[in-house]
Every structure is written in C-alpha cells, then in structure tokens.
C-alpha cells in the first residue's frame, strides 16, 4: 500500500531521517516506536505531505506523492495535538471537514456517537478540554473510512473509557483490512493493537519486522521490555534488523 | 447718439469734448485690424457701445478706447468683446470707467492685452467692471489717488490686478478669481486694500496677492480662499494686515526675511496647509492676536486669548522651502513627529516669530465677506 524508498530529510544540519526504506501493507497495524526526537512524527508527516523530503520517494497505492494531494483521500490522520479554529463549533467542524473532503460515500460516525460528541455539537472549540479535543481528532480521523490511518499518540490525554473505545475501534478497523500506523509511548497499548513494529533511532530505522520477531530476538515476552533490551544493544547501523533479512 | 447696427470702427478720433451714446449697443467692429476710438480731448463720454475685434499688434497697443490727455473721460455701460486692449488711458486726470464688460478672445498670453490699462493717471475711478480672459485684468503704472471698487476679474491670463508705482490708491470690494498668477502689487506706498476677495488662484508660483516693495499700506478685511500662496511678501514694510480671512490656502502668508515692521492682527487662519512660512530666522514683524485653527493651547482665565504663545511657522514648511520635492511627505507620520519635536524645542524655526495672544475662537467676519 505504501512504499518508502531511501527517504532523507535534514532540518538545517540535523539529519532527521537518514535514508529510510520500508513498506506498509493493508490489514496490518504498525507500531512506530522510538525515543523523543528520533524522527517518528517527521516520518509520518512526510507520508502526509506536510514535510517535504530532501530526497527519496514515497508511493501510496503505487502513485508517487510528490506534488500530489489527491492520495490523501485514502488517509485519516490524528495529530498529536489537535487545534482547530477557536470559534468554530464541533458540529460545524465536522460539517466543514465533510464539505472539504467532499465525502460522497457515507461517513463513519461511530466514534462521534461512542464519545458522546453529538451532545457537544454546539460547543465552541476553544471551550474544550484537551481530552475532548483528542476525541474530536480521533473521530475526524476515522470519519471518512480511509483505508490508511496515521495515529500520532492517539491515547495520550484520553480518559480510560475513551481509550478503550478507541482501541476497540482500531482493532475493528484493522480487521476490516485497513492499514494503521500508530506512534505511542504507551507500550501496553501498542502490544495490544499492533502486529508489526518499526523502531527508529536518530533518524535510522533500526528494526522493521513483526512484534513477535522482536520479542523472539530479545527473549522478552512484553513489548516494553523487548524494546528496552533492543535499544540497549550496540548502536550501529549494521545492527539494524529489517524485515527483508528476517 | 448712434443707432443700433453694425459699423466698422476704423480709428475714430475724438479731439473735442463730446458725448457718444449708443442705443441698444450698436457694434463697432475693428475688423481685426484697427483701433476703434482714439480720444485726445477732455470731457469725453462714451456709453452704450459694443466694441469688438480690434487689431493685434505687438508694436502699438491697439485698444477699444485709447485716451491720451483726456481728463474727465467717462466710459460706462459698454461691452468690449475681443478687443486687444480694452481701455488704454494715459496722462489723464479723473477718468471714470464704470459698468463695462470686457472679454478678450481666447488667445495666447502675448496675443492678449490688458482689460483696463492706465498709465500716468490720477484720481481715476474704476468701478463695477467685469474683466475676463485678458492678459492683466486691470493694469496700473504711475497711477495715483485712484479708487478701484466692485470689479470682478476672473480667468485672466496673467494677473487679475497688476500695479506698479501707483501710490495712495484704494482697492475695495473687488473679486479676483482664478487668474493665471493672482494679483501683483509692486513698488508702491500708501495703498489700501479692503474687502477684496482673492480666490482659487491655483497653480505653480501663483499668488492670491503678491506684494513686492510696498510700504505704509493697509490690507484689511480681505478674504483669501484656495490660493497656492494667499499673500507673498517681499520687501514690505510698515504695512498692516488686519481682519483678513485666510482659508484653504497652500500657504497663508509667505513672509520673506527682508520684510520688517509689519503688523498682522485679528486675522483668521483656517485650514491652510501652512499658515505662515518664512525663509529667515530673524523676523521683525508682529503677529499678535490672530486666530490660528492649528493652535492647541488652552485658556485658563477664559479671556478668549490662549495662555501660551503660538508659533505658526511649521518646521516642514522650512524643509519644503529648501527641498520642494519633499512636499510629498506632507501629512506623513514622520513629519508629524518632526513638527511636534520642533514645537517643543525650536531649533530651525524662528524663535521670536510667535503670536503672544492667540485667539481661542475665530473672528466673525461673515457679515463683511
């Protein structure tokens, strides 16, 4: 579904992405893991076209995304921090997104109902708490039934009930054959949701394979431990384990 | 007595006292070649004619009526249409020119003469004439003890009124409007100019009233509206400007530094770009007791006189004096700040040129204007 080839990006002198090559397939959920500043968000933003890479290529559904925007119809994105026009009401925001995306097929309002957002439709965005904003962001990401979902820290700031609702939704959508990429620092969530793992460090993809494989290599049964152990190994590029080798 | 009709007027010479009365304005046509009347005797009266189409000559001043040594000449109720000079009088005492209409043909300035031209005359009265499209509306040279009143000089090519070396004359209730260069008064003393209106003399180097080398004169109760420079003074001494209204002019008064001992009082300065401009730092004139609409002082004792003196000379007018192109920054924020700074601490503008008794309210001259 998505192929990435030798993707490079510098911010000034800082090399944020150093030649990332990988691919994502439909029907799988990927956990994008790495310490702060390892390039996760930049990587996702490259795939969204929000950051323009210095070199390399990204293709979505076989089509190169450089200079194109149409492919984003296939993507739902939930940002880390969702901010919206202050004076807009929640209902208006959903309306606007629908007009802008020109949704022809029926929308997926499941999360709107599950989060009870419909009761808040008259509220203006600037009156909302951080958690409610997250709910709005999540509902928006799933609203158009996109085959690809990028979720950047989806559970951060949500109340426990909402977290469970969202997790169920993610699992459900995955089962429907969608491609889902999640970044999170909550390893238990990832353990539950994802089957694949990508570990990034200093702009390099150091692991690209199934979570099971990762656990096997490290001899740990929990993802959190497995990653900690993996990260503590010598930091060299030759150490990088990518799918193709496995 | 001349009956209605059209006559070719080919230099009709009048050499003895005579009264010529036209009935229903008979037309005397100079056929573009000739002068019409030449008067060379006293006590001649010409009335009721239409004089038209005199010749044009750069050598001889061809006129509708030319008079030399014609004391007590009376010219009234005539029309001068397309004459080169209208009335040209020389060496004459006590002539009266009244209620005539002068309109020159649309020509270049050097192809047009003056409407009323007097040279070496005395005790003349010029009253109720309408003069347009001539070179100078009224031209005086060496004319003394004369009265010019209720005339209307509009759209003349050069000056509405132009006089030199003409002492002890009085100008009252005239209107000088839209003339090429306004009104010029030069090399004269003891002149009175009262209740005249100078308006819309606009353009480059144009004056409402130009005063050059004038002394011991009075300029009172005149109205100056929309002139590039309402009054321009050069070498003027001991002259009193009182009760004049200066409104919507580029410059209200432009005072060259060689003017001294003049008094400006009880005048109104309203909505002029610059009220008073000068080119020197030492100015020996008195400007107390005027109303300046730009004055921002206060009057604590309520005596209608501002408690702090007003300095009407604007710093920026001094800048424009030196760099005319800088005028395009007028009303910009920077100029505003410069002015404020200069008002607080005068450095360039003349320190002593100030109104010590600025009025809080404008004088009411509506009845007179």
């Amino acid at each position, binding site marked *: 579904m998505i192929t990435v080839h030798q993707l490079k990006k510098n911010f000034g002198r800082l090399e944020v992405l150093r030649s990332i090559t990988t691919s994502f397939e439909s029907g799988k959920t990927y956990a994008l893991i790495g310490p702060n500043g390892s390039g996760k968000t930049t990587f996702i933003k490259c795939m969204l076209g929000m950051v323009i890479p210095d070199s390399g290529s990204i293709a979505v559904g076989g089509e190169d995304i450089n200079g194109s925007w149409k492919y984003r119809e296939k993507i739902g994105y939930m940002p880390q921090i969702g901010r919206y026009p202050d004076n807009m009401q929640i209902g208006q925001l959903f309306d606007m*997104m629908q007009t802008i995306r020109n949704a022809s097929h029926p929308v997926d309002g499941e999360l709107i109902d599950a989060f009870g957002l419909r009761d808040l439709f008259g509220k203006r965005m600037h009156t909302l708490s951080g958690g409610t904003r997250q709910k709005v962001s999540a509902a928006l990401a799933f609203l158009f039934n996109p085959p690809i979902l990028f979720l950047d820290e989806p559970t951060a700031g949500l109340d426990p009930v909402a977290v469970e609702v969202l997790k169920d939704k993610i699992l459900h959508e995955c089962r429907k054959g969608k491609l889902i990429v999640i970044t999170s620092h909550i390893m238990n969530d990832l353990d539950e949701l994802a089957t694949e793992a990508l570990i990034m460090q200093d702009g390099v993809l150091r692991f690209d394979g199934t979570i099971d494989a990762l656990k096997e290599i490290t001899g740990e049964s929990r993802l959190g431990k497995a990653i900690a152990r993996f990260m503590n190994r010598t930091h060299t590029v030759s150490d990088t384990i990518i799918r193709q080798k496995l | 007595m001349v009956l209605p009709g059209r006559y070719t007027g080919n230099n009709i010479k009048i050499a003895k006292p005579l009264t010529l009365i036209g009935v229903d304005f008979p037309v005397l046509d100079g056929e573009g070649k000739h002068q019409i009347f030449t008067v060379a005797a006293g006590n001649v009266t010409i009335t009721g004619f239409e004089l038209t189409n005199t010749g044009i000559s750069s050598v001889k001043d061809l006129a509708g009526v030319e008079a030399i040594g014609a004391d007590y000449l009376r010219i009234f109720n005539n029309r001068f249409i397309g004459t080169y000079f209208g009335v040209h009088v020389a060496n004459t005492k006590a002539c009266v020119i009244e209620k005539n209409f002068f309109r020159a043909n649309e020509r270049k300035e050097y192809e047009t003469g003056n409407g009323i031209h007097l040279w070496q005359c005395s005790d003349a009265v010029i009253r109720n004439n309408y003069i347009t499209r001539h070179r100078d509306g009224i031209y005086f040279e060496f004319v003394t003890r004369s009265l010019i009143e209720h005339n209307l000089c509009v759209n003349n090519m050069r000056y509405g009124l132009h006089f030199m070396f003409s002492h002890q004359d009085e100008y009252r209730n005239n209107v000088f409007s839209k003339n090429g260069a306004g009104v010029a008064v030069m090399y004269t003393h003891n002149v009175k100019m009262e209740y005249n209106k100078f308006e819309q003399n606009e353009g480059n*180097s144009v004056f409402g009233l130009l005063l050059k080398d004038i002394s011991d004169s009075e300029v009172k109760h005149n109205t100056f509206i929309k002139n590039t420079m309402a009054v321009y003074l050069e070498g003027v001494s001991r002259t009193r400007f009182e009760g004049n209204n200066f409104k919507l002019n580029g410059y209200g008064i432009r005072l060259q530094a060689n003017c001294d001992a003049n008094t400006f009082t009880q005048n109104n300065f309203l909505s002029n770009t610059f009220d008073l401009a000068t080119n020197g730092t030492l100015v020996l004139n008195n400007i107390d007791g005027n109303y300046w609409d730009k004055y921002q002082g206060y009057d604590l004792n309520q005596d209608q006189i501002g408690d702090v003196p007003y300095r009407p000379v604007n710093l920026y007018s001094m800048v424009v004096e030196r760099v005319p*192109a800088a005028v395009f920054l007028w009303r910009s924020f920077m100029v505003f700040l410069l002015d404020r700074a200069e008002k607080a601490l005068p450095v360039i503008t003349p320190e002593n040129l100030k109104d010590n008794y600025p009025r809080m309210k404008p004088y009411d001259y509506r009845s007179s204007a």
Partner: protein
Amino acid sequence: MSRIIRYVFYDILRTRFVIFYTLFLLGSTFALFQLDADPGKVILSMMNVVLMVVPLVSIVFASIHFYNSYEFIELMIAQPVNRKSVFMGQYFAVASSLSLALLTGAGLPMPFYGITPAGIALLYTGILLTWVFVSLAFLSAVLTRDKAKAIGVALLFWFYFSLIYDGLILWVMYSFMDYPLEKVTLALVSLNPVDLARIILLLQLDISALMGYTGAFYKAFFGSSAGILFSAGVLVLWVVLPVWLSLRIFMRKDL
C-alpha cells in the same frame, strides 16, 4: 478553496478582535463626522486612521491569525486539499474579513453625511492597504517559525513603511537637493505603499494644487488616467508580490 475561505472567513468575523476593530472604526468615524461639520476635514482626520491604524491592525492581526491557525493549517494539509488552496484560502479570508470590517466601520457612516469622491478614495486605498499589509504579514509568517519573531518582523514592516522609510527619503532628498528630484521621488513613492496611498488621498482632497510645482507635478501625473492605472498597479503589485513570494515559500515549507 472557496470552502476554506468561507469557513475561515466566518470564523474570523466571529472573533472579538474583528468586531472590536469594526466598532472602533465605526465609533471614530461617527465621532469625527459629529465633531466637524466640514466633510473634507473629517476625511483628512480619517486619512490618518487609514494610513496608520489600518496597516498596523492588518499586519498584526494577520500574523497572529496565521500562527493561531497553524494547527488548523496542519489539519488541512493532511486532508486531500491542495497546499495552495489552504494558503490562499487563509489569505483571502483574512484580507476580505478585514476589508469588510473597514468597509463597515468607515463606510457605513458615509451615506448619512454625504458620499464624496474623497470618501470613496479613502475606502479604496484603505482596502488596498489592508491587502498589502496582510500580504506582508503572511510573508513574515512564512519566513520565521516563531510566533513572537514573526510579529516582531510584522511590526518592523509597519514601522519601516510608516516612519523609517520616510526619514531615509528625507535624508536622501536633503543630500541631493541641488538636483531635480520630482521624477526620483515618484519612483521612491512607489517603493512605499503607505506613501503612495497618502498621495492618492491628498490629491483627492485637493491640497496638492496648493503645493506649488511639486504638487502640480504629482497632480498632473496621478490625476491622469495613466497615473491612476500606475498607482493602482503599483499597489496591486504590493499585494501580489509578497503573497506570491510567501506562497512559494509555503509550498516547500515543512509543517
């Protein structure tokens, strides 16, 4: 793009700031008309508002708005929407809502006190200046990543065009006062939209005729149809050039 314009536009119209701006203009215009019977003088006072306040409000509001909309812009970019549409949508929405505020605030009282050509010119130059300074705000916003810095740059733009530029010009003119400067100043005026707007207004107020040779020169130039086209063209260039440049930067910008 039109959908984005519509949404952002209504959003801005509801912010207290634009309402306050409209009321401020409305209040001061009514007050000026009430205090002074002479409409010419009123326009002259309003000219100061248009030349000082309008650029300041436009540039500050637009750069603050751009930064407050940063996440919204991010959200839009993640949607199947052209970057150009997002950027230009924001631009048109900000510029037209500020124009509407000006038109309402300064224009609404006019029919009550008489519409004059000078009044029309005032609104026309005010609106053009709004667009110019929104353009400059967007340029300063895409040039820096930091909100405070961008507002700083925006204020500097305003300060430069309102004051510093004129000071420099005056200094230059003083240095070269022995040369004929009319044509040169014409070029210099074109390099500052505020100066250009002021001259267009002063000519409407008919003060120029009273300013001697230079005034007459400007009047002859700006009064002719070529001059009107020229001044309008230069102002439009001042609108288009910064916004074109900032769009180019934005198209390659990482969000």
